């Protein structure tokens, strides 16, 4: 069979290499080349996705397993189940849009080349991570991905970008390194051998003492909690969001941070179910704190990028709540939320980016009355904003309600407290909309305020379209998630029954 996943990983990586190798004379076309690569990637993905057997969404498909470093038990093993497929889809969808969004960001072609190459490199890592069927491979990509991101944040962006980049890297590294201890330990507690890290060989076969399992769970969880910014290890995100380029932030929050929840879902729960069960009360408390805390802080922000990043903290809290409620519906909801949040927040960051591109500031107080000047922009922003507050008809709603309703049977109090966030979400989105778009039009409309351009529409509207599609027909996505979620829940509950 055609090695779809390896090609999907290799293509953008080679693309990045190609961009760096381009002669100076070809640099003017660098955007088109980069975009072309991502479009080819997307087409390949679609061809693959069409062959995905929905009826068997719980199983890894398009599996490839090659020996990589057999001495330490690592394989180049890729494969996606329904959840992985959706996550790869997210990466494949958002990267070309980000490239398109950044079309006019750099005046110097050489800088443009670096930016695009780094974006392509990140895409390769993202696809690889979501498709990894080997814990070691997952870890390697998980950590290696920090590097392009680090350069993306540190080289392109606002005044404090260096601080933000270092902060991002160090936070992630602390988590990643602690996880490394867990990964290493996995080799010794697991079956060992040349395929010691293959998830198939690890899932359900680990025979750990309680203490071992808990420690390893915590090692993995810490890394994922930092990535999926959970309070109190979230503070890197607002700084990054404020200082990185909106496109970078969009990729980071919309796709990359999902690795945190993805890891919790596919590694923490399946490898260490008993420990997950043991830790779940505390994690649910943390999740609920994230939900409310993030929302309250979002309300208190003046910088729109920071604001959106705090909303993400809140939303990630809901995902984590769904994951650690261990209910079929809540887990499905969380998995779906990972995808939907990517669409919604990605679009929101990119739109704020378009605003910044016009006026150079993300400060809400610098704006006002834009609806009359740029009605299409305002409308698009409003729809995307409403998706962020989980309005029915737009996809995040379905996932949020699935988490809240699904988690209710086991964590009623958590759901009730989290439900307060629907009010807070209304506040932070609508207050922002009000400040930026309503009110009297500014006296002299700045020359830079032009309505959404064709290019910008091409960026924002596909996302809006997807949100609407999945808002009205979420079954399209849920069909991919049901079986994997059921498998995951079965793991945890089986262990519970054993205990």
């Amino acid at each position, binding site marked *: 069979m055609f090695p779809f996943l390896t090609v999907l990983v290799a293509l953008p990586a080679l693309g990045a290499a190609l961009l760096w190798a381009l002669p100076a004379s070809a640099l003017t076309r660098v955007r088109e080349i980069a975009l072309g690569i991502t479009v080819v990637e997307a087409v390949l993905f679609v061809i693959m996705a069409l062959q995905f057997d929905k009826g068997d969404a719980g199983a890894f498909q398009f599996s490839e397993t090659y020996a990589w470093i057999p001495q330490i038990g690592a394989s180049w093993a890729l494969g996606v189940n329904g959840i992985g497929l959706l996550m790869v889809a997210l990466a494949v969808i958002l990267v070309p849009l980000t490239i398109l969004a950044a079309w006019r960001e750099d005046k110097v072609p050489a800088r443009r080349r670096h930016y695009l190459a780094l974006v392509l490199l990140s895409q390769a890592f993202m696809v690889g991570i979501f498709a990894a069927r080997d814990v070691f491979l997952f870890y390697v990509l998980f950590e290696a991905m920090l590097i392009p991101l680090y350069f993306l944040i540190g080289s392109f962006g606002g005044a404090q970008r260096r601080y933000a980049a270092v902060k991002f890297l*160090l936070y992630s590294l602390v988590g990643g390194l602690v996880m490394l201890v867990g990964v290493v330990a996995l080799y010794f507690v697991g079956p060992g051998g040349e395929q010691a890290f293959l998830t198939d060989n690890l899932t359900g076969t680990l025979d750990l003492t309680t203490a071992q399992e808990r420690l390893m769970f915590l090692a993995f969880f810490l890394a994922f909690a930092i990535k999926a910014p959970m*309070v*109190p290890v*979230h*503070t890197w995100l607002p700084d990054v969001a404020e200082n990185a380029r909106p496109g970078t932030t969009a990729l980071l929050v919309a796709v990359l941070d999902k690795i945190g929840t993805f890891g919790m879902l596919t590694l923490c729960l399946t490898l260490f179910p008993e420990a997950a069960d043991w830790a779940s009360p505390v994690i649910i408390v943390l999740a609920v704190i994230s939900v409310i*805390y993030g929302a*309250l*802080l979002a*309300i*208190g*922000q003046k910088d729109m990028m920071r604001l959106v990043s705090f909303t993400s903290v809140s939303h990630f809290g809901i995902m984590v709540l769904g994951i650690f409620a261990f*209910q*079929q*519906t809540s887990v*499905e*909801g969380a998995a779906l939320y990972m995808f939907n949040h990517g669409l919604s927040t990605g679009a929101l960051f990119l739109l704020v980016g378009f605003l910044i591109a016009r006026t150079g500031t993300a400060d809400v107080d610098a704006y006002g*009355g834009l*609806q*009359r000047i740029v*009605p*299409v922009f305002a*409308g698009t922003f409003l729809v995307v904003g*409403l998706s962020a507050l989980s*309005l*029915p*008809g737009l996809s995040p*709603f*379905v996932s949020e*309600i*699935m988490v*809240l*309703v*699904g988690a*209710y*049977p086991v964590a*009623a109090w958590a*759901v*009730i407290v989290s*439900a*307060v966030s*629907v*009010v807070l979400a*209304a*506040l932070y989105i*609508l*207050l922002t909309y*009000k400040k930026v*778009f*309503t*009110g*009297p*039009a500014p006296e002299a409309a700045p020359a830079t305020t032009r309505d959404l351009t064709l290019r910008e529409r091409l960026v924002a509207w596909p996302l809006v379209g997807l949100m609407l599609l999945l808002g009205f*027909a*979420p*079954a399209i996505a*849920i*069909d991919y998630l*049901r079986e994997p*979620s*059921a498998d995951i829940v079965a793991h945890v509950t089986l262990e519970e029954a054993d205990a």
Partner: protein
Amino acid sequence: MQSLIWLAIALPLASAAVLLCLGRRADAWGHWMGVAASGGAFLVGLGALIEMLGKPAEERALDTTLYTFIPGGDLHVDVGLLADPLSITFVLLITFVGTLIHVYSVAYMEHDKDRRRFFAYLNLFVAAMLLLVLADSYLLLFVGWEGVGVASYLLIGFWNYKPEYATAANKAFVVNRIGDIGLIIAMGIMFTTFGALDFATIGELAGNASTATLTAAGLALLLAACGKSAQFPLQSWLGDAMAGPTPVSALIHAATMVTAGVYLIVRSAPIFEGAPNAQVVVAIVGAITLTLGALIGMAKDDIKKALAASTMSQIGYMMLAAGLGPVGYAFAIFHLITHGFFKAGMFLGAGSVMHAMNDQVDMRRFGALKGAMVVTWVTFGLGWLAILGVPPFSGYWSKDKIIESAFVGEGWQPWVFGLTALIGAGLTAFYMSRLFFMTFHGKARWTDEVHPHESPALMTVPMIILAVGSAFLGLILATGDRFTTWLEPVTGHVEHHEPVLPVAVIVALTLILVALGAVGAWFKYGRAEVPQEAPSASLATITARNDFFQDSVNRAVFQRPGQHVTRTLVYADAAIVDGAVNKQARGWSSLGSASRKLQTGQVRSYAATMLVGLVIVIAVIVVGGL
């Protein structure tokens, strides 16, 4: 047509989508498409009604599954539309009144350059509202529920270049969302208890659930209803919502959306049946709101705000009725229908007046308009008679029944609820008459630049149709208990209960109070001079004028502390959560600066370090090894 009822939603939804997507290109004809979409939906509803009337009563309900919405493992939700007498009643109300208001808006919004967008929003609202009432599960209902919320937000803030209008829109949405928490929790409870969210399953299984569970679910639903229907304590948004164009007030904030709470309670009858305590709370909320609304209505000089207060009060009646249980469900809906007609009619009338008076809303600058706008006067007058409950106009048939039902029961409840409803009728008569007389009678207190004139036919025709409905609909539907029988498959058949007072006494008392109220108003506002500026007034009046200081209370209790919390958290996040990490990082650096002093540069000290290290190691290992 019953199985094609989805068309009723699809038509306005498609129209809204087209209008929004095409933008200015649809400016020329967009409004008419909006009207057509709404009208089409009405025809679909009418067809369904005719089809249903042809069937025996117990076979009238039809649940059509369109497609699977959430095909989860545990939670399965379909996009299913339930066309039963209750929902079709709503469909007809929404589409009929809605279409009239669409037509009215064509003229009313003629000079607004964003008229097309306005129609898109109106269509969006109609679609969402129809989804709300046709949904066969709480989840799908919630979709419509939020949909009308957002349509309401968009329409209230239609002129959001005025900051206070934008604020009003936000307020409406946010307060509604507080109610939504209730619906989410209710769904959580239902999913936990019944494993499903559709009405059929829940109706079937509700009997098995514990009272405590049902009470919790009922109270959560009530919270939702309070938000949407502007019931105490979530009533504060409705008055501000009058910022929207008047047709919006007529359609959304009088006739349809605000009644969704009542619909929710009635639809959740199986839950409330097992939760008598929750029912009582519903009734209490209704009673409080109806009084509160009436009191506020008496003090408002803004014609739209007075009408809004009246709406609140009338919905209080409906809530009260819904809280009485099966005995009141049908009357709650009945009143909802008649109220939809007469209140929409009066709002359109108010719009017509504003149209004539250069968008002024202060009734103290109105007066004597009956001469200038006869049609408006007459149609408004019919609505006025209807809301007063003067026989044989519509309101009489519905409201009187509610008052009667309120007197049914045992213990303190019939007396409290009954008397509240009774006195409310008197108050209603007073404030509505005050409104009517201040606007149309007495002396003209117009500002200089206004030249009142009758509105164009596009506006008056809908008003006339609604006025006809206000006059006769009640009579038609009440004759032979047609309406209650029609609803029986949903609300259940109830044996007639005797009120604690004889019916004749109740009717008589009601009429007397209404007459007193109206006459009192005539003397104070019809015959007597009305000052152009609001006179300084008693504390009670000021309290009512200020909506019982609800905004101040909200500000003091929620907004200010909330802002403080937010500000504190923003600070704490930077100083403590982030600060701890930064301090820790600085700690490492200081540790480094301190440690590097050990590297003195003196080779002899290096040797000493080595030797000391060696000696310690040997000491520990040798001594430890012995």
